[in-house]
């Protein structure tokens, strides 16, 4: 039993790592631009397809493929900002609806480019760290967890130590005051959108070898990300990380001891309860939205 718990805990930690990357990106975009990016799950999907193309089809090194995926999805994010989030800045509901439209476009492009069947990416490494007979940690999963920690730490450093990071946090707190201080709102929106999208892309790229890649994979990702950011408080980066870890544990344990669909239902019910009792989330402030 202890071994089962330990193994499930390790699985949860892995799930937490990529969930946190996706959710933090979503929160960053919301914080700076005040809009929910419904296409965020599809950005994750794009990152995974970058691996299918660059690593599996063109046989380039895996890390190169991850970098390409991250940069490519970041650039797609810039395109989204310019094409519809910027013109719809005063209309957050319109921005959300436009991102729903964009989600359909990305899904359709993925099925036209790669077909609707599942893609399986060859494993990067088969090595497994054997902790005990029943507790095993594949090296690749460990690498994903470490990569997520490094990425989140560098994001934190960027936001707290650099002038760009300060500008970003300033326009998240109060866009008008930030603009009066000479911070370009367009500039901070671009940075937030690039980083947010790139984080979703890298999460997809990192997990691609462990899951089946298909055009509709973004759906469960966005549902999970919504649960995390609503429970965590919609503008709170710390909340997103903490809740991502907590939710991954709840979801993984319920999946292990009951089944996956029950785990999804539990997650959505948790989110509804938070929406009813404390719509600002566990870690959110009442400032925005």
């Amino acid at each position: 039993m202890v071994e089962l718990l330990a193994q499930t805990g390790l699985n949860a930690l892995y799930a937490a790592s990529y969930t946190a990357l996706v959710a933090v990106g979503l929160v960053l975009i919301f914080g700076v631009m005040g809009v929910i990016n419904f296409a965020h799950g599809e950005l994750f999907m794009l990152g995974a397809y970058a691996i299918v193309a660059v690593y599996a089809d063109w046989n380039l090194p895996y890390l190169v493929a991850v970098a390409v995926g991250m940069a490519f999805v970041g650039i797609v994010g810039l395109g989204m900002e310019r094409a519809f989030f910027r013109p719809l800045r005063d209309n957050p509901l319109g921005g959300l609806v436009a991102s729903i439209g964009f989600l359909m476009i990305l899904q359709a492009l993925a099925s036209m480019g790669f077909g609707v069947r599942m893609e399986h990416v060859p494993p990067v490494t088969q090595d497994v760290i054997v902790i005990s007979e029943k507790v095993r940690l594949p090296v690749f999963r460990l690498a994903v967890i470490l990569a997520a920690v490094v990425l989140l730490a560098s994001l934190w450093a960027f936001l707290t130590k650099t002038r760009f990071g300060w500008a970003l946090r300033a326009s998240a707190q109060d866009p008008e005051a930030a603009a009066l201080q000479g911070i370009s709102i367009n500039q901070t929106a671009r940075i937030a959108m690039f980083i947010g999208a790139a984080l979703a892309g890298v999460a997809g790229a990192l997990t691609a070898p462990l899951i089946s890649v298909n055009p509709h994979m973004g759906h469960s990702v966005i549902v999970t990300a919504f649960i995390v950011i609503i429970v965590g408080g919609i503008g709170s980066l710390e909340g997103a990380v903490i809740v991502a870890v907590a939710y991954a544990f709840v979801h993984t344990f319920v999946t292990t001891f009951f089944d996956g669909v029950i785990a999804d239902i539990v997650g959505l019910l948790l989110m509804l309860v938070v929406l009813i009792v404390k719509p600002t989330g566990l870690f959110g402030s009442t400032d925005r939205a």
Partner: protein
Amino acid sequence: MPKLAALLGFGAILLALPHALSFSQQEILVFLTINVLLVASYRLLTLTGEWSLGHVVIMGVGAYASALLSKRLGIYVPAAMLLGAVTAAMIALALSFPLFRMKGFYFLIGSFAAGEIIRLLWKRFRDPFGGPKGLKKIDPMPDFDIGIYAFDFFEPVSYYYFALAVVGVSLWVMWRIERSPVGLTFHAVHWQDRLAEASGVNVRAYRTLAFVLASGFAGLSGALLAHYIGTINPNSFDVEQMVFVLTWTIVGGTATFYGPILGCVVLTILNEIVLREAGFEQMRPLIYGLILILSVLFMPKGLESLVRGAFSWRNARKKKAGETGAAG
């Protein structure tokens, strides 16, 4: 009187329409008729200012309920359809308690979550919902004869007439609701909710009423769909379908009763004629996504604004013509 004549003429066109179409086009016409009811009910919901992402799932509740009632309990299909609509309204009433503690953006996400929970329940519980494969061999409408016309429901034309009657009555009821004091209060709740509340209007009760009524009509459209296609599954009511409804509504515009219907009809015709005939059917989600983005960006008031623009332009020209005539 000219209004009545126009209405009769329009009705005659609707009755004659299927006979000018091919078999597959007749089938599409049935779906279009059902979708008209769905978007019109969606507009009823948006009257109080709330946009739901769970409306298609509520349509599914009506479909599942009606299918199960006729399949399991052997209830007469038209009665099962009505009960399906009632079930959808009741589920909406239950959902309104958590959902209407939220507004705007949170309501949107909350309704999405609630819809997903219902879809997951259909997937999880093989008995009675049939799991991911859904329900098959749903009882078709029993044939009947009304003297002047014998309904044979293997023919799309017959189902079209039946759906047309149901949808027509439903639209008339929704129209009357909107024109009644209740409907005017819906508008007040949307545009002046503080003032309405201060005037003694129970804002939340009216929001709930709009939600429940809209859900009932959505459930009815779901029941019409279920007994026509004979098989439904959780993916028949997924986000993609919701995007189609959103697109129809936004492209049409929500300021008038006919806006969303116009959007639905125009886009369906575009879809069937342009995409299917040209062999681009696979690109439907792509084109819908593009249309959705473009209309949010460039036509935020929808097609109806073009229609009204044309009318006001014509009136202005008439007025001008009258003025010059008087001067001459």
